[in-house]
């Protein structure tokens, strides 16, 4: 006698309605019970008969040809079937073409992407080159401007230095004190830092060969004027004469020119003919 529960499971098994653990457990019971196996087989046969409960419909007329062709293509059990009867399943026939089409479309897409990327790459490279040129030009201009600015700064510096140097110079026009030197024009320029001076003279009267003009620099630090050297005028009276005192001059308060005997004297003896402060 088979229990009701097992009958129930056998019925469900006949309809393939058992799943998972329930199915495994029932199949285990089946293997141990010939009676249950017999009942299950009987239920399965009855269930199969339900096939005929479906409304009977004639299959389409082309289905037989299709089935015969498909069986012909199944070579494993049809060794005598001629190769010409082999008709591949439509999907399998189409699959390689579909794969080829997909491959072609993919390849075309990649090619298009590659061209687009190449164009973009070329464009970027050109832009980079232009940017490099612009950078070099700007660098060059900056360098030029820098050099120009440096040159201007140097010029300004030089000018400044010159003006500073000039500011240190003492320029004095000497006036005539004697009647024969009224037209004489003498200018003394003194550089206290260098302790040198320059004397420019015009229309200074010529003197005898036994006489010399002598330059004197008046410095309050000394009781007597400091000797600046002698010079001689021959004919035209135009002279540009550098001079240097024989003692350091702290402050050149005035410049004077006297007429002395040839070779000059340590201390002024002759007449002062020109004087300037």
């Amino acid at each position: 006698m088979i229990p009701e529960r097992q009958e129930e499971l056998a019925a469900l098994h006949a309809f393939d309605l058992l799943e998972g653990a329930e199915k495994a457990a029932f199949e285990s019971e089946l293997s141990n019970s010939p009676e249950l196996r017999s009942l299950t087989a009987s239920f399965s046969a009855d269930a199969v008969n339900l096939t005929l409960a479906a409304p009977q419909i004639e299959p389409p007329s082309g289905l037989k040809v299709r089935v015969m062709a498909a069986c012909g293509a199944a070579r494993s059990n049809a060794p005598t079937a001629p190769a010409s009867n082999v008709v591949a399943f439509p999907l399998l026939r189409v699959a390689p073409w579909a794969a080829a089409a997909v491959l072609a479309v993919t390849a075309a897409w990649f090619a298009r992407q590659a061209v687009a990327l190449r164009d973009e790459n070329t464009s970027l490279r050109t832009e980079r080159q232009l940017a490099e040129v612009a950078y070099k030009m700007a660098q060059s201009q900056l360098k030029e401007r820098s050099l120009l600015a440096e040159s201007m700064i140097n010029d300004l510096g030089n000018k400044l230095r010159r003006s500073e140097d000039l500011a240190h110079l003492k320029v004095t026009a000497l006036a005539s004190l004697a009647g024969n030197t009224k037209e004489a024009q003498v200018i003394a320029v003194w550089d206290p830092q260098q302790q040198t001076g320059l004397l420019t003279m015009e229309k200074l009267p010529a003197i005898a060969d036994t006489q010399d003009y002598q330059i004197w620099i008046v410095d309050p630090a000394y009781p007597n004027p400091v000797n600046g050297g002698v010079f001689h005028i021959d004919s035209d009276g135009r002279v540009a004469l550098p001079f240097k005192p024989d003692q350091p001059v702290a402050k050149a308060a005035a410049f004077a020119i006297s007429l002395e005997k040839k070779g000059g004297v340590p201390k002024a003896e002759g007449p002062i003919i020109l004087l300037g402060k």
Partner: protein
Amino acid sequence: MVLPSPSVRRRPSVSARLTMDDPTTPNQDELARLQAGLLHAMARGDKGALAQLYDSLAKPLYSLAYRVLNDASEAQDIVQDVFVQMWTKSATYDTSRGSVFGWAATLTRNRAIDRVRMRKRRAELLAESAPDLQPAPPAGEGDSAASLWIQEKAGAVRTALSQLAPDQKKAIELAFFSGLTQQEIAEKLSEPLGTIKARIRRGLLKLRESLPSRL
């Protein structure tokens, strides 16, 4: 039609009666033997036997597939797959394990239900699946012995089904044709799972009582 297989040639009259030469309906055992003979011939590569078995089984198998799938194109695919499988596996068929019809019907139902389950459209199927049997369309080949056999057997099955209680009949039909699980059948019929299991068991027992004496 003459079959090249010697085993079938020994009984040419039976082979002919299976198709359309003789409208007399053969009995169940004779048909089962004939179908088994055709299968053995197929195992030797006899395409004529395949054609004859197709003529014998295509209609009920196609009707079953169509009933489960409700789709003519898919039903044709299923029938084609089943015959290809029978063609390639015919050498492994063992008569002790059941009739050729039973094997073919089981293959058809399993494949059809697999498709139904693969569709993943259970909600749609719940709405579409009709538990009641549709009226049988007129038979297309009334003079075929195989068709007569199918008609007779189908009539017996329908009669047996009609003798079931309506709730048992619905449960049995859903269990066989719908591809639904036990739980889904219970949900569709708004009954507890235990009730559904009991209805299937009682329905199948009653069918068992009715069918053997008639088939």
